[in-house]
């Protein structure tokens, strides 16, 4: 029956890992702006178009 110790500790460890991941995400400022990313996502197509015809400035980078 001691398998319950292993199961419990695994479940608690997994839960704590996710919990810490959330705290790190909040701390890094991910949740400070919840609006702009939703618009930024829509621009990704436009950005790709730009990259297919790179200008001189991009090459220097």
């Amino acid at each position, binding site marked *: 029956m001691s398998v319950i110790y292993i199961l419990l500790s695994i479940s608690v460890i997994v839960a704590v890992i996710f919990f810490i991941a959330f705290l790190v995400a909040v701390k890094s*400022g991910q949740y400070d*702006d919840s609006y702009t990313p939703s618009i930024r996502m829509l621009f990704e197509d436009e950005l790709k178009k730009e990259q297919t015809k790179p*200008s001189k400035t991009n090459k220097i980078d």
Partner: protein
Amino acid sequence: MERQTCFHCGDNCGQNVLEFDGKSFCCNGCKTVYEILSENDLTCYYDLQSSPGAIPKEIHGKYDFLAEESIVDKLIEFNDGKTQITTLYIPHIHCSSCIWILENLNKLNPQILSSQVNFGKKTVRITYHTKDFSLKEAVLLLSSIGYEPYISLDDFNTGKQHIDRSLIYKLAIAGFAFGNVMFLSFPEYFDLSANRTGVSEFWLEQYKPLFRWLMFAFSLPVVFYAAQDYFISAYKGLRAKLLNIDVPIALGITVLFIRSTVDISFNLGSGFFDSLTGLIFFLLIGKFFQQKTYSFLSFERDYKSYFPIAVTKISGKHKETSIQVHNIKKGDRLLIRNEELIPVDGILIKGNADIDYSFVTGESETVGKQSGDKLFAGGKQTSGSIEMEAINSVEQSYLTQLWSNDVFNKNKEAGFTSLTNAVSKYFTITILGIAVIGASYWLAVDSSKAINVFTSILIVACPCAIALSAPFTYGNLLRIFGKLKFYVKNSSVIEQLASVNTIIFDKTGTITSNKKRRATYEGETLTALEEALLKNTLRSSNHPLSRTLYDILKANDIVTLHHFEEHLGQGIEASHNNNNIKVGSASFVGHSQDTSTLNTTVHVSTNNTYKGKFTFFNSYRKGVSKLFNTLKKHYDLAILSGDNQGELENLRKLLPAKTKLLFNQKPEDKLEYIKYHQTEGAKVLMIGDGLNDAGALAQSDVGIAISENINVFTPACDAILDASKFNLLNKFVKASKSAMSIVKWSFVLSLIYNCIGLYFAITGRLAPVTAAILMPLSSISIVVFTTFATNILGRKLNQYDKSHVLKSQ
């Protein structure tokens, strides 16, 4: 003729259309931006949104102060010598195109590594190499494409901003612990054999302590970290001899924790850890919901948010240096360029001053000054550059002195007892009474149960539902108000608003509109020819009064003037086919006797004969009269105006007879007036707009700032109301009152739950599972009730707003 709009900014191009690349532009500025963008393959800017741009402003020399190390240091967040990071506030950010172009700044200058927009706050965070590049160049680049950043004295003081995220952490911990504890307590709740026979399953019996101590471990951070605000607040309340709502909550949490720990230590039961963590989780959700922040608004602004960081100082022989505003000393000679703000009181030395005091007074009219005249801080120069000599430092200037008043350091919330705290006083005493009576009864009957009953009563009566009523009601109403463009600082303002009995208005900019004006003409009737000439003369002038008068006059044929000259601060002179016209001040047109009127006037003379004058009147906002007539039934009304009595007669006609009208009120007078009425027991709602109302707004119980454009400056206040919703003011106050009764009804509802819980507690039969069901059930039903009721309130408000908009169309 077909009306053409500018491809870049969307303005009407008028007469001078610039054609470029098959597109039309209204001015060279807009055309240049288009050129810059198309050279860099960034024309996508115009695909995302049509005509998203702004006309780039003339900024020559304006940002010279950014060459000063000491100033730049205050504005950048990160600097390692090679790269710098800075966050700039750009008021023009308004659409998806803005985000796109600002996040592609690196295509315009390779030294910019990345840029990230925060749309809500209207800021852009730029990371750049300092080699061949600087903050000044970044600002100039942004300005050149029409995104001029706004750098004020406020940025200088705050430096790096600290964001408080502790509530999210606390909420996360409580939620995490609540979920885990609930799962860990399920085995015992669902142990059916124990319920039937009294002996639980073998394996559960063996591992019970493990489950229980795990729950204990999870509840530790919840009690000692997540719930600490409740303990602190209860302690503060007790020290101030107040029984606020946090006192019974803190008591409940303490009893829950101690009783549960004792229960599991002596194997008396499974403890109430799930109720404990759940209680704190729900309370924190309420706190979180109550916080509605408008990131694009600020309720704490003072003069610093729109004063410049630095101005140009002239020392010696025309040597120009940038000087920090705080370092300006008496006697310094300053250069104020066009569109720059006067930071200190001073005397005009050189140049024609045409000062716009609209930030200070709300009055959009510019004031002309001659050399030797006194200039007050806060005005904006509008025609050419001037030189002035400072006669005070910034802090001692006439306008900024207002902020040294104690009112600005007072915390309004501190002196206010909310409905919840008022109820809590009686609630706490009653519950303690019941607990003592219940315990002493059991002491006589069965002493072993006395402690059990005593603690059970305190646990079950923990006023979670009461504490949640107000946050959810006000929080939801805050959101509903926000959608109707009434932005309230926090939920206690709603409660204050409901208790108001006196409403005081500012005049200029508050009940009058800045945008619309009326004018009447007195004097000899103008001939058709003269009228056409007048109109054409006005067309060429950019002075605000000319623009207004031009809009008022009927359209005429457009003729080309043969001669046109604008005399700054005096008037304009023009001629066409031997007919000459002069428009401007009385002395300018050669009209010697100055009439007694107090209103703004523009005089006209043709061919050196005086014709007459246009007198300007304030145009009142739509529905002012109706609003005052509805309000007069329930409130004392007054108008405090900084202006002269010129509008007295008009106001008398417009407003109900018993409205008090006071004129020539200085900012301090307004503050004192409100203070005086408050000592007489009045609850004052002040509605104003300019910096001169700042003191009155701070002193009043509720200060509402009216704003035509919520993105521009508003003084420190409790709420910001969009000018277009001014006529809804009455409805907002009414809705706040209804919210109060919703809170009262939910108190009744939660008391019913408490009575049910008390029945179990007093009879000594409160099992952990009963508490675990009752507590969330009462909380959730309160949340449902308040949300539902406030939404009905919101729908009514919306309907009224819509019907109003339809009527006015």
